[in-house]
């Protein structure tokens, strides 16, 4: 929604939040429901009110638990039936420098300051550990912002007794914890306060009047920032940047002005602005953002522009380059298809408001930020948090290469008459195993991101995934796929629970089931990344699940299909796998049975899988 896109009018959001919420709820129906506990060290009322809006705008409908005023620590540490019953999917600890109970005294020795540092840190550390042990859910924790005054003036940061020194050291301890706890995320309010302007942010009126850790007007930017972490944790990040060329990646029109007259590089101030922007875009690749071009240009001119010696981006940095005279909205739909992702994963970057408008209207879900003038492009994109990084993975850094390899595969497929011959030519090698520690994060990520090839669309946190892996009533399988063009990484996940036929009605109601262990396998989750569609990976997964069942003496597998707005492609999936439909209700939930034959013939014949 325009009102909530960066740069937004914070005061309007605060004033009209009720109206905005009503509109958001009317506009769409396919929300992801999540429960979020906000444990505050200061007032949280308006923070929750505005955070709710930004989450709704990103497709997440949150139910909130709010601690009583400043009860964050007590709420987490002691018996708390209300919070336990709430069973949060995520806990946000909203503390600030007002919650540091003691700062160094000017007479303290270095050792005493060190002790105090440990004491303040431990106060938080024991709480985080308690949360992890009790609630098994991701935690977002604010770091500390700088105070609004400096007793020691410019030495406040250098002198061990200074509050800024103390806060910097305490923050560093928080970061160390974050580096080794994968479900623990820092919300960087120190950066937010600086970006907003510390004097305005820390206006003491709001603390003394209302016990807010920041001024009311800063709350939308604050809430927006934390909403980025939340939606990233729940798999709602965008995936690709689709860029215009003329006056977006360089100054001038390449077709009219010629490559040599484009503004890019160190010669002119405007050239420098574009060069910096190209550098920013190029580094997006490193965090796993897919780059594409959608430009009204002759293809050869587009390529020539991208080969400008003073530019940073090269044609090979892009996965798809659509440079033609078709409407950009049409090109962008094609790009989504080529990448095998949904249009709502795309961010369209174009200097021309009219083009942005057309794309936003014609292709619902595409983000088309108002990027302003060239010197503002980076800030607007950066602050919009489209690609919020929660954890950098090898996969992220290689993602562009993987998608490029995919497009090569598609091209090659066109040269083969016989599809099986094509699949064999890919020399595919699969690894299919029970969940392993190395891949827990990726598996959780997939469960939150996969919408299309996903039979039950059950979302899991990494802790859930680890719990399944450790529980032997479950059969878990992840699948990795490599081929001659590259490694696709982990692309498929199956989770099955050993139960009895009596569990079926509960599963049909999409409930979480934990009945008696029996000799029937209920498939709670089966998903696959769309980048390996039509590669027979699903057959290889099926084989592996069947073999696991045989080892345990299971003869019956029950699969469930829960329809969503996005998973129509797998409505008949179990039928294709040889299951028999045994029930279907009027909401479209269907139930499928597979009786494992004595002589099971492996279904996969094209992927080499180590058994």
């Amino acid at each position, binding site marked *: 929604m325009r009102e909530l896109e960066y740069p937004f009018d914070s*005061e309007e959001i*605060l*004033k*009209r939040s*009720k*109206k905005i919420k*009503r509109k958001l709820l009317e506009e769409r129906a396919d929300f992801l429901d999540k429960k979020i506990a906000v444990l505050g060290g200061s007032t949280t*009322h*308006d923070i929750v009110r505005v955070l709710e809006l930004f989450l709704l705008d990103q497709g997440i409908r949150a139910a909130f638990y709010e601690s009583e005023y400043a009860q964050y620590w007590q709420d987490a540490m002691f018996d708390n039936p209300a919070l336990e019953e709430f069973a949060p999917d995520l806990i946000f600890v909203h503390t600030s420098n007002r919650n540091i109970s003691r700062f160094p005294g000017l007479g303290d020795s270095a050792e005493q300051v060190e002790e105090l540092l440990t004491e303040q840190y431990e106060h938080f550390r024991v709480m985080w550990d308690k949360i992890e042990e009790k609630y098994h859910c991701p935690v977002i924790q604010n770091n500390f912002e700088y105070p609004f005054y400096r007793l020691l003036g410019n030495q406040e940061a250098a002198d061990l007794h200074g509050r800024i020194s103390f806060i910097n050291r305490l923050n560093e301890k928080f970061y160390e914890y974050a580096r080794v706890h994968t479900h623990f995320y820092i919300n960087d309010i120190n950066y937010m306060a600086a970006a907003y302007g510390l004097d305005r942010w820390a206006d003491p*009126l709001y603390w*003394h*009047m*209302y016990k*807010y850790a920041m001024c*009311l*007007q800063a709350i939308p930017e604050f809430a927006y920032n934390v909403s980025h972490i939340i939606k990233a944790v729940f798999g709602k990040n965008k995936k690709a940047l689709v860029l215009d060329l003329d006056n977006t990646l360089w100054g001038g029109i390449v077709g009219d002005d010629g490559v040599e007259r484009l503004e890019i590089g160190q010669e002119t101030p405007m050239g420098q602005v574009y060069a910096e922007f190209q550098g920013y875009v190029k580094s997006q690749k490193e965090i796993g953002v897919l780059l594409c071009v959608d430009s009204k240009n002759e293809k050869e001119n587009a390529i020539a522009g991208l080969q400008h010696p003073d530019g940073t981006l090269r044609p090979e940095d892009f996965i798809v380059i659509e440079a033609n005279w078709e409407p950009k909205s049409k090109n962008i739909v094609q790009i989504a298809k080529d990448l095998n992702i949904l249009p709502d994963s795309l961010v369209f970057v174009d200097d021309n408001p009219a083009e942005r408008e057309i794309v936003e209207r014609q292709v619902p879900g595409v983000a088309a930020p108002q990027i302003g003038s060239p010197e503002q492009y980076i800030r607007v994109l950066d602050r919009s948090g489209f690609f919020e990084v929660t954890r950098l993975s090898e996969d992220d850094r290689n993602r562009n290469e993987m998608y490029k390899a995919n497009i090569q595969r598609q091209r090659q497929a066109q040269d083969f008459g016989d599809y099986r011959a094509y699949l064999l030519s890919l020399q595919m090698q699969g690894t299919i195993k029970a969940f392993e520690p190395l891949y827990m994060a990726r598996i959780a990520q997939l469960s939150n991101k996969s919408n299309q090839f996903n039979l039950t669309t059950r979302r899991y946190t990494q802790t859930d995934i680890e719990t399944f892996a450790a529980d032997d009533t479950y059969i878990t399988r992840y699948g990795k796929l490599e081929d001659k063009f590259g490694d696709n990484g982990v692309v498929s996940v199956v989770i099955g629970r050993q139960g009895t036929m009596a569990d079926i009605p509960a599963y049909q109601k999409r409930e979480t089931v934990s009945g008696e262990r029996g000799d029937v396998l209920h498939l709670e989750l089966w998903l696959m990344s769309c980048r390996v569609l039509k590669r027979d990976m699903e057959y290889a997964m099926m084989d592996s699940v069947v073999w696991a069942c045989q080892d345990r003496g299971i003869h019956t597998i029950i699969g469930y299909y829960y329809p969503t707005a996005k998973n129509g492609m797998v409505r008949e999936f179990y039928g294709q796998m040889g299951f028999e439909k045994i029930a279907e209700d009027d909401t479209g939930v269907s139930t499928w049975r597979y009786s494992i034959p004595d002589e099971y013939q492996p279904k996969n014949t094209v992927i080499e899988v180590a058994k």
Partner: protein
Amino acid sequence: MICRERPDSGTMEDVMSREEVFARLNDVFRDVFDDEEITVTDATTADDIEEWDSLEHINLLAAVEQEFGMKFNMGQVVSMKNVGEMADIIISKIG
């Protein structure tokens, strides 16, 4: 409409009348409480508007500040008793 010295003529533009202040306050109240039925008077207090609790009060003051391009200081926030007093402070700040 905000009263200010006209740089060209040096004469005062018409001072915003109490009625105008109330008309604009009324709009702000309707926005904040999302209720088109609200009409505020001098004597209106938090007791008269169901949703006007201490939490919404913060938001209301911020919206009033935005509307009139002024800021209440802490003393004023603490002592303000009803909408009439709120209007008086606004007029004293922008008049």
